């Protein structure tokens, strides 16, 4: 919980990791390149006082996570989003099992999500069932650009993906977090393309699709889909740190999201350990749309910030919110899609 100027904010960090990127776990130059890429994101977008050494960035201890996220980070509940990357890291980068150790030890603090890969076929469906039972999954994190042998990625609209989404419905897994990118493969396709989200969001209205980093760098394509599909949400991982280095850009992104979606479908995330929640939350609560942009984007009220920082994600994951921290109308449904007219040709 964070408190400022008489307002109290219930905080859900919708996207954190417990990774092992030490050289001993790097399987090849891709694993090394992957963590170096993350580290450059970290160095480039963090305030100077928050920049770690590469060695600190490789792996975080249990104590460090508890300290960064909860002791000083104001977070009430954090959601682990696994990223397996088995082709890049010997024991995987950040698996459900790794995350689950902490989630099981601190059930009041963490929620652990699972993952699946449609290229695993029938055997993978059984594994998903076992994983769901073992970790009481409410959500999964999908990584469509992940390599697997000769395959350099997949799409949510692939036939086997449909089988897995049906399985999720059956198992009560209702939150589907989709990571688009990084820009690796498939080669001639666009790894950030979000059109497959559009198709499955229509086909599976009972599932919620949280698009991580809201499709950046394809914000417009994401917005166009999300405005028409009421079960598509924006996850702010990677978007948040722009608040420091590119505040006007951050204002534009938040402004566009509020215009095309609404304040009930945007969820905060630090993407820990790429960034730490403390400074992101402090800056966000202090943040306001610059004066010259308010004609277009309006202002961010404390109520909107409360929803984005925690109440929206709490609703997705049935996290109990103390009544004094809630916003009364936060449980109203999303507004009607605004752009139900003919689609802009892609």
């Amino acid at each position: 919980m964070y408190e400022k100027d008489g307002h109290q904010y219930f905080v859900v960090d919708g996207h954190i990791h417990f990774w092992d990127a030490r050289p001993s776990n790097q399987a090849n130059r891709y694993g090394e390149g992957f963590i170096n890429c993350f580290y450059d994101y970290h160095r480039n977008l963090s305030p100077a006082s928050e920049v770690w050494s590469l060695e600190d960035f490789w792996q975080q201890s249990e104590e460090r996570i508890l300290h960064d996220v909860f002791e000083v980070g104001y977070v009430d509940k954090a959601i682990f989003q696994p990223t397996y990357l088995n082709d890049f890291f010997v024991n995987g980068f950040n698996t459900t099992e790794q995350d689950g150790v902490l989630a099981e030890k601190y059930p009041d603090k963490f929620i652990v999500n699972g993952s699946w890969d449609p290229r695993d076929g029938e055997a993978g469906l059984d594994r998903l069932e076992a994983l769901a039972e073992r970790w009481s999954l409410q959500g999964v994190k999908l990584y469509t650009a992940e390599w697997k042998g000769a395959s350099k990625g997949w799409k949510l609209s692939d036939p086997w993906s449909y089988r897995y989404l049906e399985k999720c419905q059956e198992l009560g897994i209702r939150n589907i977090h989709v990571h688009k990118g990084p820009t690796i493969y498939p080669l001639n396709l666009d790894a950030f393309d979000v059109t497959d989200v559009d198709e499955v969001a229509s086909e599976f209205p009972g599932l919620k699709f949280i698009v991580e980093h809201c499709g950046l760098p394809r914000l417009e394509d994401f917005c166009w889909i999300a405005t028409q599909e009421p079960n598509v949400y924006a996850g702010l991982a990677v978007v948040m740190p722009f608040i420091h280095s590119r505040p006007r850009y951050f204002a534009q992104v938040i402004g566009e999201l509020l215009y095309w979606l609404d304040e009930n479908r945007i969820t905060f995330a630090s993407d820990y350990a790429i960034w730490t929640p403390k400074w992101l939350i402090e800056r966000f609560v202090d943040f306001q749309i610059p004066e010259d942009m308010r004609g277009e984007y309006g202002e961010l009220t404390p109520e909107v910030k409360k929803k984005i920082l925690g109440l929206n994600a709490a609703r997705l994951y049935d996290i109990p919110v103390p009544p004094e921290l809630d916003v009364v109308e936060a449980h109203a449904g999303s507004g009607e899609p605004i752009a139900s007219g003919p689609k802009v040709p892609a």
Partner: protein
Amino acid sequence: MSTSPPDGGIWEALATVRDPELDEPITELGFVSKAEVHEGHVSVRLRLPTYFCAPNFAYLMVADACDAARAVPGVVSVDIQLEDHFAAHEINAGVAKDAGFTGSFPGEAGGEPDELRLTFRRKAYLASLDRLVTRLTAEGVEPARLRLGDVPESQELARLLHRRAELGLDCSPRSPLLLDQRGEPIPAEEAALQLRFARAVRVSIEGNADFCRGLLHTRYPESAWRDSSS
């Protein structure tokens, strides 16, 4: 790094090559770390903001840069190398052999990335439309029923015409200003929404370009870095 134009017009030639996604010249983005010519033999080094920058876009830039350098009068040979990229070896070898994208990644690429280039040219056009409309609106001009011939000269208009010509869209004075990315006139009742979409495209492209510049600077601290967000 060579930020000053070398002899022989090589730098100017490379300045015509744009990052297809960011819609800016690779020279201004800081992607050209070296461009030299010696007795007609050109040597170019390219670098990108991350190790995992999309290989399709990377390939297009290396191939375009190679074509641009070869077209300079007096050039005998071009040695062009992308550095510090996970697919550098395949891309460099493929471009040197004129193998095309599929030839550079045998068995891995499902086709040439022309469609991707078209998608991003269309996005670049929409962003240029937003820039012009923003200017007109600020000057109190209602853009909805304007024809190109009615629009006062400006840098924004010149950029828009350039993007239209590239896509083969109507550039005549009689053409409506508000054309969508396929060249169809935007109906008045859809103008607000379509222009709003064009705004989102521009926010995306400009934000992405800024981020890429910052990442390049983080990766190569000696690179020139122009912060256009402040």
